[in-house]
């Protein structure tokens, strides 16, 4: 359900007028989503969903209660409001509760495109057929997913704050496997704008990888130079940033903690080519203008010339530590370089080309050590040339180590990672990179 600015304001005005607590906050989120799944070279399930959700926060001083509802008739709203007020009254004081923000100035960007909002079941079917037709011709079996969604978000409070914004997202991803079960390839992309999505090219890429990855040979565990395609580097970037909370660092329980107290902002933790920032207006990854409290999402630099510049600060922790609070972010951008993927491969004496990662989980938060696997195309590089496909490997490695070992990068592009990070909620832009001494620890028989 996509509402207009007026419809959203009418609802938030009504909720605020019905509320009795000292402070009221209301958010409204609505979406229209539609998708098509295919597998075994056929369409499998397909659906559409239209929904709305209203979250009401009631506060009495430092006591708060939150309820949500998907029903927007007056009786249901009243029930949710009274329920939130009851909870707030029963709640003990939370000294960390921050007062509601006053009216804010937002700088919305164009993140909503009609071509996605108006995408039809016929378009989705045709985009799937692009992959299925090519798969049948090339004798591979493909499975994939295409989704188009339009989302709006509104926030308002009893101090006069109001915000309304919308975005669209179109996702296309597929996995192609050879009939003998020894080869598998994958490709994925997401954009806010439908015309940027190219199902034919994505399908061709996945199918090509499937063919080239057939009958892989085993390699020994050990440290390897890896050429990480953007989807793989994107996972390392995202998992590292998910751990970059200021409070956790200041409390001494994060990799970003400084021994003896405080955090590591200002320290050169990465190679000097590393620059990571957020910018809601980035043309490849436009995102919405405010968060659930109405705090504006602004541009921010996280890492510059390898130096840690900032961590994520909640409003409470920012005030306590005398720093700027950081909202969102809606996207993460890592600057790249000027090499091409071919250059990265050509500059590899011995290493492997990685299409994507899979099943990444934290192993040791102390050292930001993660474990994960490779998937859908791992290729040996010898003397600057891809020589043969190799079997998938498990790795235990830290993004910090990887980002210190970057030798060269391509230009950055919009990315969806193997873990599915980069569509809808958090957009990602990052390059491919050659990284030395990446630790593969055991072999996997999985194709």
């Amino acid at each position, binding site marked *: 359900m996509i509402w207009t600015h007026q419809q959203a304001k009418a609802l938030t005005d009504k909720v605020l007028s019905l509320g009795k607590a000292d402070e009221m906050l209301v958010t409204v989120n609505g979406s229209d989503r539609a998708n098509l799944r295919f597998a075994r070279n056929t369409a499998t*399930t397909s659906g559409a*969903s239209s929904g709305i959700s209203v979250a009401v926060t009631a506060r009495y001083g430092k006591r708060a209660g939150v*309820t949500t509802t*998907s029903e927007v008739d007056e009786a249901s709203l009243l029930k949710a409001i009274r329920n939130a007020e009851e909870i707030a009254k029963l709640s003990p004081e939370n000294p960390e509760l921050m007062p509601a923000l006053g009216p804010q100035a937002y700088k919305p960007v164009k993140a909503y495109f009609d071509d996605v909002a108006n995408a039809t079941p016929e378009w989705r079917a045709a985009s799937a057929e692009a992959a299925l037709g090519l798969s049948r011709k090339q004798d591979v079996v493909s499975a*994939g997913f295409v989704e188009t969604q339009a989302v709006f978000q509104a926030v308002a409070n009893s101090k006069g704050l109001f915000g309304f914004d919308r975005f669209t997202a179109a996702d296309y991803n597929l996995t192609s496997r050879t009939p003998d079960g020894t080869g598998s390839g994958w490709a994925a992309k997401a954009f806010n704008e439908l015309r940027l999505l190219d199902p034919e090219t994505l399908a061709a890429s996945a199918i090509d990888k499937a063919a080239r990855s057939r009958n892989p040979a085993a390699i020994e565990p050990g440290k390897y130079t890896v050429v990480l395609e953007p989807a793989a580097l994107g996972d390392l970037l995202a998992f590292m940033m998910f751990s970059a909370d200021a409070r956790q660092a200041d409390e001494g329980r994060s990799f970003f903690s400084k021994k003896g107290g405080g955090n590591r902002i200002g320290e050169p933790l990465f190679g000097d080519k590393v620059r990571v920032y957020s910018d809601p207006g980035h043309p490849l990854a436009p995102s919405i203008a405010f968060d659930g409290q109405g705090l504006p999402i602004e541009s921010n630099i996280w890492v510059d010339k390898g130096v840690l510049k900032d961590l994520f600060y909640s409003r409470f922790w920012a005030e306590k530590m005398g720093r700027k609070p950081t909202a969102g972010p809606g996207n993460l951008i890592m600057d790249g370089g000027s090499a091409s993927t071919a250059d990265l491969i050509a500059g590899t004496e011995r290493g492997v080309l990685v299409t994507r990662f899979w099943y990444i989980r934290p192993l040791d938060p102390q050292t930001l050590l993660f474990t994960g*696997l490779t998937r859908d195309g791992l290729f040996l590089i010898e003397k600057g040339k891809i020589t043969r496909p190799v079997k998938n490997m498990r790795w235990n490695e830290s993004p910090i180590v990887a980002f210190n070992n970057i030798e060269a990068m391509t230009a950055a592009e919009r990315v969806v990672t193997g873990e599915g990070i980069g569509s809808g909620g958090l957009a990602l832009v990052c390059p491919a990179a050659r990284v030395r001494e990446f630790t593969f620890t055991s072999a996997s*028989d*999985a194709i």
Partner: protein
Amino acid sequence: MIDRRGFVQSMLVLGAATGLRPSSILFGSPPAGELRDLADAALAAAKAAGASYADIRINRYRNQFIFTRDRRVQNIVNTESYGFGVRVIVDGTWGFASSSNVGKDEVASVSRQAAAIAKANRKLNAEPVRLAPVEAYNTTWNTPVEKNPFDMPLQPKLDLLLQIHEEALKIKGASFVSAAMQFVNEQKYFASTDGSHIEQSLIRSYPSFSVTSVDRGTGKFYSRAALTAPMGMGYEYVESYPLLEEARVAAEEAVAMHKAKPAPAGQKALILHPTNLWLTIHESVGHSTELDRALGYEANLAGTSFLTPDKLGKFEFGAGIVNLVADKTQDRAMATCGYDDDGVKTTRWHLVKEGRFVDYQTTRDQAHLIDQKASHGCSYADSWSSIPFQRMPNVSLEPGEKDLTERDIIGATDDGVYVKGDASYSIDQQRYNFQFSGQTFWEVKNGRITAQLRDLAYQSNTPEFWKACDLIGGRSTYALGGAFSDGKGQPVQINSVSHGAPITRFARVNILNTGR
């Protein structure tokens, strides 16, 4: 104190006054006829639009989250979501649509939308849907709970969570505590063109906490999470679990981690407590026996499975003492219900019997793919807005016939490690190579626990691992663990599922030291 009865009464009055009926009346108290009218309208519209089969779910979901940290109540959130979803088969092709706007006109229009989606995909569909037969049921089923957590007052919940903080922080070296409770209630109404009308109310409860010990001098920190499991139980679970005692033990163990012996690397006997083994079962058995994975339907995200249909009835999955059972009727387990989202009555069956792989998890539209005549009842959608598909039932390791205790198993081990609680977990896309860690680790030498260990992970390959199983504990060591939010599908859906296991030993497994 919230007086729920009074609250509901006042809402009914409000509803009558404004002429609008709060939908909370539609469940439990009559008239269930309201739901039937909506269902009839949907199913009629679907049939008129060309559907050979249709079903509708009109569901309400309630969640309560209470989150506390460092002696503060941070968040109390009550969520509610209400809507309906319609599935149709038109000309052998599935279509689905849903909406949060529950009303007669909307159910009819959304049913037509589902049919239009099915028709748009007909050209692409090479496999006409074939449904295994099902009986029609006109009935209700509710999770048997003693205390509905949504009827319990808030204050005692907050008091208990804050007491956990106090207990843990009494221990010198314990620096931070977080504690939470989460409760879920799914109220489901299912109706189908097969003639079923099924109402169910499912409840799940999950108290949890984590204690962190920071040593500012060394800069090291260690955490130890509670060994509680999310359960298909009511508030009686929170009241009966020894949370305060465990908070103390957790704090002591977190602090002790600083001085614990670094884990040995190499092949060792591995003893797993059910609080750890549940997750290994989930990843290596629960997921590998999903039929849709094995046939390639989930290849694009979750992956496939090394357990291909040619292995059915033949493949030696594990040692002869290993019996792994799927069960959607198991008491206190989270995937337990009366009927799945295809309207199939739930049941219990073997996946691995005496070490051999014998069956899969299936839904109505999958059964025929392995020449089975009936569905095992594994269909589930996590919301009115999502499409039902095959989800994991509770999958458990049967206890051994002899009632071997923890002491018996440790006593029989010369050189091993013992792992409790779950932490890191990772497995490949065909369910072979996996690596897990845990909450606490113990060295076992010559039949005794000799030291606490730290920085340990174990890595293996599924069939090798289960073939190495050489000692299974008895019924007295059996306990349920579980995952509140298992993810699968595109768009991703979550599923809550329990896994029971006794204390179990695996003869030789690769142990890693993860310290750097």
